């Protein structure tokens, strides 16, 4: 347990020192949301209609950007071999990295989302389900992203390949996250969508580390 906390601490300290990486993801999030009104036109009604989905897609893409170096950096400088030999099982190592990734990237995105939703003129009642959905969904994105990041360690053009691998797996999270907000805007309850998101999270927490650890072991052979 203390090894897990130590690893999370290490990752967070690294993220803080290289603060620009997390900040870049946040800036990308903001930029995508800014691009949309410029491309679609500033009509408030249209923007309000697309706001929940747009925030979700932008958050998804921002998380995707930050996953590239998650394990590749460790693979290059030899930390991955040390982690493999450590007391902590590789699956728990992945869990620690996913938690740290969420704390450093997902959580800031979550906190910035309401501000960007404001730019898109999102209706007031949509903020609650949006935040709740992102709270449940961003950890899923980190966990599923870990699987993809583990598989591409040492691959050529890993960044682009990662998008192709991980985006199909992200689609259910997007559908239910945006669906929760759409439900509220239609006057229905967001409960089924949020429960399904919670279900995806509950499944991802044990299963994603197993798959990612299998991928890391392949990288270390």
């Amino acid at each position: 347990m203390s090894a897990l906390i130590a690893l999370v601490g290490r990752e967070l300290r690294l993220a803080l020192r290289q603060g620009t990486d997390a900040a870049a993801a946040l800036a990308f999030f903001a930029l995508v949301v800014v691009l949309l009104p410029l491309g679609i036109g500033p009509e408030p009604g249209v923007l309000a209609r697309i706001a929940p989905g747009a925030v979700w897609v932008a958050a998804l893409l921002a998380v995707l950007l930050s996953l590239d170096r998650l394990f590749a950096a460790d693979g290059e400088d030899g930390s991955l071999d040390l982690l493999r030999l450590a007391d902590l099982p590789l699956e728990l190592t992945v869990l620690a990295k996913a938690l740290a990734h969420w704390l450093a990237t997902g959580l800031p995105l979550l906190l910035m989302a309401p501000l960007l939703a404001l730019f898109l003129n999102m209706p007031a009642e949509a903020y609650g389900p949006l935040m709740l959905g992102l709270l449940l969904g961003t950890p899923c994105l980190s966990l599923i992203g870990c699987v993809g990041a583990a598989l591409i360690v040492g691959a050529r053009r890993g960044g682009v390949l990662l998008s192709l691998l991980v985006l199909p797996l992200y689609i259910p999270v997007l559908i239910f996250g945006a669906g929760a907000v759409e439900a509220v805007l239609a006057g229905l309850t967001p409960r089924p969508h949020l429960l399904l998101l919670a279900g995806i999270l509950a499944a991802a927490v044990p299963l994603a580390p197993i798959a990612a650890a299998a991928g890391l072991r392949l990288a270390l052979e």
Partner: protein
Amino acid sequence: MTMSGVSAAFHRFANPGRFLRLAALLLPWSAGLTAVLLAVGLWFALAASPADYQQSETVRIMYVHVPAAWMSLFVYANMALAAAVGLVWRHPLADLFTKAAAPVGATFTALCLATGSLWGKPMWGTWWVWDARLTSVLILFFLYLGYIALVHAFDDEERGLRAGAVLVLVGVVNLPIIKFSVEWWNTLHQPASVMRLDGPAIHPDMLRPLLIMALAFTAYFVTVVLLRVRSEILARRLRQLQQVQAAG
């Protein structure tokens, strides 16, 4: 077959040379069967089966669309099984099977989506709709493409094959979603008519060409995969020979 008999057979067919001999034996039969089944199936589908009372002749697209859809799921399930066998038992041909099957599965999925779209325009009035069944099959198509990209992304072939095997197993969760999407969601796509607990809800005159086409597609899959695995084994031998020659 006893358990030791099963594992003996398992290990016997792990030998690539033996597989090549088996493939040489099976290929002519498999190819012939494909041709025969395709001819019979198409004759039944296009000529000897009734037109639908609502859709008239357009229903005949079903005889390509539905078997292609079945094949896209069947091929992925086989790939997942082979991936599991390759990861757990390190069977040398399992990963080659997965690599060989992927483009075939991707093509069947693309065929399913394309024929579905062509069928949807006259029937539903739209080329595409974002309902659960179509979306999940589109995701399956991207999973196939992702696998193919991942396997070719590594200089070390073994590494690529094993990483791909992990990816296939991660994506297998999509299969029950596709199958049950028409029951779990309100979809435009029609619910299951053949593989139901209550038995097929389709007339035997239409079920017959459907099943024959499905068998024809399966025979085609077997033929193409045998050819492709044979090519992979021979390509591997060629690379080894080139390396020996380069080493002097």
